[in-house]
């Protein structure tokens, strides 16, 4: 199969030294010497993170690729502010190490230097799955903790705020978890969703987005717990404003809660995790947040027919979005949004009328060689300030650089 596209075209691909499986962490650094470096966290061991010089986007070049300390862990997520990079580390099971966040000085991208390590390992902790670091002061993340005992082993990652104003001494400031997911809570453990396939979902934090325009709010995807808006005006004691959960009857795994702040809208994704569309529908919801205490879904982004895509192999459905990351190297729009949809590729929607999202473009790479599934699995997407699109494959395809033309 060849690439499929609408209003998008591939200008380069880099298979990342044949380690082309990338997770959910992408950040574009502008170095002091004028280079543009795309940093990516890998989906799985043995690789940790890879840096690609994309100064000439038609000729990307790997300048660094690192290995994890062992194969029973993954990095998955990272973020960059200036010359500081934060990398998440999650172990395969509870009680292992290293589990936490590594802070690195990347002023010389080819030679990262550790600034500190924020250890979150513990008897019931796998460490950090996903992090958000955009202001240089606080990391917002989905993390376990040595003093957190979940009522269910899969509910082991809470929303956590870490103060890194002194990057040599990261300190936890506050945390929030869904009541009932911690041993000792007054609330009863929340009901589990019906199991789909071999992987039951957890009721735990995933994406934890906070924006400078609204520093008193955290927008948290809480997997089977739904989409959560938290008041973090007091970072020590985050308080829930509202929780919206389409599951049940939908199948959970709320992944990203992307606020389109100027328009009082939320874009909420559910991650597809089963092959062949077994957990379909995994949707991207457009939610009216004019009253943030009464979230109202108004539409979903249109996707191609499941009948056509479930037979292509691998996952099909929503995953993540370009998250309007603050910073000079990131495209920001509350109207045009870019999502990653596994075997349905990168898809772009126009939310001018949020009641009727329109597909503006898509790009589906051909199935990359060596993938365990017979399709591309676009895992994450980043759009730079010029509108250039960087998308990554979950298994072997590596980095795709795509030009949008609409």
């Amino acid at each position, binding site marked *: 199969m060849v690439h499929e596209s609408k209003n998008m075209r591939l200008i380069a691909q880099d298979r990342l030294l044949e380690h082309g499986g990338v997770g959910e962490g992408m950040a574009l650094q502008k170095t002091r010497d004028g280079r543009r470096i795309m940093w990516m966290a890998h989906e799985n061991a043995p690789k940790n993170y890879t840096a690609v010089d994309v100064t000439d986007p038609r000729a990307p070049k790997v300048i660094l690729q690192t290995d994890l300390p062992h194969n029973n862990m993954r990095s998955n997520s990272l973020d960059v502010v200036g010359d500081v990079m934060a990398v998440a580390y999650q172990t395969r099971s509870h009680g292992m190490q290293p589990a936490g966040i590594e802070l690195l000085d990347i002023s010389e991208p080819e030679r990262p230097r550790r600034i500190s390590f924020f250890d979150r390992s513990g008897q019931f902790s796998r460490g950090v799955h996903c992090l958000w670091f955009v202001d240089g002061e606080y990391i917002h993340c989905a993390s376990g903790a040595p003093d957190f005992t979940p009522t269910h082993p899969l509910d082991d990652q809470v929303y956590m705020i870490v103060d890194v104003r002194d990057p040599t001494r990261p300190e936890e400031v506050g945390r929030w978890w869904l009541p009932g997911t911690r041993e000792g809570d007054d609330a009863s453990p929340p009901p589990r969703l019906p199991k789909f396939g071999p992987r039951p979902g957890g009721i735990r934090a995933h994406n934890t987005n906070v924006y400078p325009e609204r520093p008193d709010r955290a927008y948290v995807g809480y997997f089977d717990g739904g989409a959560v808006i938290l008041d973090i005006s007091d970072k020590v004691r985050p308080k829930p404003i509202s929780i919206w959960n389409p599951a049940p009857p939908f199948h959970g795994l709320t992944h990203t809660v992307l606020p389109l702040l100027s328009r*009082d*809208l939320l874009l909420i994704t559910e991650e597809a995790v089963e092959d062949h569309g077994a957990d379909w529908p995994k949707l991207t919801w457009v939610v009216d947040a*004019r009253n943030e205490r009464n979230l109202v879904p108004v539409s979903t982004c249109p996707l191609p027919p499941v009948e056509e895509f479930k037979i292509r192999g691998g996952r099909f459905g929503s995953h993540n979005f370009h998250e309007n990351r603050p910073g000079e190297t990131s495209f920001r729009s509350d*109207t*045009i949004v870019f999502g990653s949809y596994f075997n349905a590729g990168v898809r772009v929607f*126009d939310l001018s*009328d949020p009641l009727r999202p329109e597909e503006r473009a898509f790009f589906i790479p051909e199935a990359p060689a060596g993938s365990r599934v017979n399709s591309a699995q676009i895992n994450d997407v980043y759009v730079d300030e*010029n*509108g250039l699109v960087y998308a990554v494959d979950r298994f072997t395809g590596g980095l795709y650089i795509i030009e*949008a033309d609409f």
Partner: protein
Amino acid sequence: MYRFDQHCLLVPFGTDRWSMKDILVSSLGPRSMTLATPFPCAAIDLRSGDALRLNNGAFAIHPAGKPASEGSPFEVVRDAVCGHVDAWGGPAQRFLRDYFDAVSATIGRDRALIEASMPTCAGLYSAEDWLYSAPLPLPRAHLNAPASSRPHGTEEDYVRVDVVFWNGERFVAIDAGSSSLLPRRAAERAERLRRAGIDVVSWAGAAPAGFDAFFPRLLPRRARYFWQTRSLPTGPFRSDALDLLDAFAAQSCPVDGGTTRREEQRSP
């Protein structure tokens, strides 16, 4: 805008979708016209040389002469204009709210100057009567800005802007930051507007205090304050009967320098 004839430009606004074929003139007088369109449309009289002002609008009026909704008349006008932005048009909504606040603040600040400027009318008018001399913002407006030197003569030649003002000579468009374009297309759009002679003001994140510098761009040449008009103040509320009277009276009794008129066709 759509050039109706050598003296008149039509500007569809308050909508994302419109069609030229839907613009119909239901009546035409020597200096007035009534449009029958399924979307709001402003008619601009190029002969007036004046800005399009709030009191050129045809805002809904109750048969008993009261505004059609709750609030002060100025709030009714503000809400009517803001109502042309869709429910999730946050950036344009914020610009308009700030704009109307700035209009109100200007009258409050200049009260002494206004009262000193009308010594012969003492007691007849209050400074607030000049609120409606402020320029009229048209949200979600569609302006003629062809992509090439050979226009299509169709809707393709039009560019949607968040808000636009007519200052008597040219359009001043507000980019409130709600564009649905990627950077390259946004640059092309900006170039189209520039070639069409349309001023574009980027307002995303601007402070309300910025209006002091902004108002003069919305006014006819040499005008310093929007309340300095060539006539006594008029209100923005009109009835059909007034429109008919104006058609006869326009030649001898110009209002704010002209009789630019628009009429909205509202859905039930």
